[in-house]
């Protein structure tokens, strides 16, 4: 059902875990099936220096979480913001049609973590 690349990210997910002193945290739930993804970021000089995820979901949800963390790690905030859910699915070499909705969480959750980071920075400078 899943491609080898998806299974590789599922079996050996990159960047699993939490960042206790994260600069931003994003959580998103999949309204379709009820899965949950949580992403932690550490930001330095406008760059995503570190990123970790935790996911409660299917194989596709785990693989897209893992892939998105690889895609944004070391990128600037601006670069991370233009990454789309579709791009994550494409980077995995595609997902089965009935699993496309799982990729909806990945980029969205990263964007939420960035939003969280920005709101904190914004509040701090006021």
């Amino acid at each position, binding site marked *: 059902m*899943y491609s080898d690349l998806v*299974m590789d990210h*599922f*079996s050996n*997910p990159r960047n*699993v875990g*939490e960042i206790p002193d994260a600069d931003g945290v994003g*959580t998103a739930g999949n309204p*379709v*099936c*009820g*899965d*949950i*993804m*949580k992403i932690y970021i550490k930001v330095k000089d406008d760059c995503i220096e570190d990123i970790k995820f*935790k*996911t*409660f*979901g*299917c*194989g596709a*949800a*785990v693989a897209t979480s893992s892939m998105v963390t690889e895609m944004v790690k070391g990128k600037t905030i601006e670069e991370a913001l233009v990454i789309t859910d579709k791009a994550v699915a494409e980077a995995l070499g595609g997902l089965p049609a*009935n699993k496309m*909705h*799982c990729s909806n969480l990945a980029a969205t959750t990263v964007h939420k973590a960035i939003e969280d980071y920005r709101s904190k920075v914004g509040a701090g400078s006021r």
Partner: protein
Amino acid sequence: MENKPDKVVYMDHSATTAVHPKVLDAMLPYFSERFGNASSIYGLAREARRALDQSRQTLAEGIGAKPEEIIFTSGGTESDNLALKGVADALRSKGNHIITSAIEHHAILHVCEYLSKRGYEITYLPVDKHGIVDPDAVGRAITEGTVLVSIMHANNEVGTIEPIAEIGRICKERKVVFHSDGVQAVGKLPIKVDELGVDLYSISAHKFYGPKGVGALYVRRRTPLIPQAQGGSQERNRRAGTENTAGIVGLATAIAMAEERRDDYNRKVGALRDRLIAGIQERIPSVCLNGHPTRRLSNNVNFCFQYVEGESILLNLDLMGVAASSGSACTSASLEPSHVLLAMGVQPEIAHGSVRLTLGYDNTEQEVDYVLSILPEIIERLRSMSPLYSKAGAAAGGGNG
């Protein structure tokens, strides 16, 4: 952790079973040298006719019925469709109310949805936390307009065995036609149609080491039934179409074998089931057994593993050579969690982590122990990636196994 075994550890016997070699041997001649159409008159046809008659006799004896009360079909789904639509059509002038349960197979529930669009009123009886239908609730739900009650003999997901004989007595008293989906029960529970008090009973061969695509519907004499397939006069005008001779011979051989070894099966498979259940409860915290602790099919193990998702568990099991199934939303085409678990009051996020392991005659103690050796690590690894775990783990402070 042990090494992955050479052979797949198959623990999905409620999905389907392998055709038994003896069953296959009995079937093979009917594909080739004995290929005749039972409706023709020459010798070749008479051979096929004899095989059908003999198979009908064998099945009838197996379930305590008369041969003329058996309709061969293409499987459990067709039997369920024929029972519900056939009786509903036949009794349309009497009423439009049908009673069933919330935990039936989709071959019943989707037919009920179809009938409700055609003007039938459907009552979906609830179940208790173990998945049991209350027979008194059946009695209370019957009205003047009730034409049919359909309650499954045993549930395919959680293995709960329903009080069919009690429900049968109530239906008889109230003169309502009673159907039961027995697809999961054959080979595990004694099936005598008079003792169960059923008027119709669905059977599917591939669940008891017979071939896929063949089944039967028992229809008690004088039960009103409108055929759902028109054409030739096969099956006493109740199911048109040239008979699947090889499949029917396979079904009959399989049911004879299943009945003969039923006690042995239940003893052997039941012991493996108990070992697997106890082992999981011992080794893994925060799990709950779904279904009834004792009124349960001898081959069914169904657990919810909190904080993790079922498809992820299945993929990991598959990587380790174990075949199982799940009631998780992510594994279902509809992306809804199992309707059976929800009806039993399991919370959707808990139902997410459900795994069904259904054992068979060929499973061994070594295979059970192998699963027990890999499962704790799989669950632990997935929990360590779950955003729900640490939070809940700290709050709940351990398992409820």
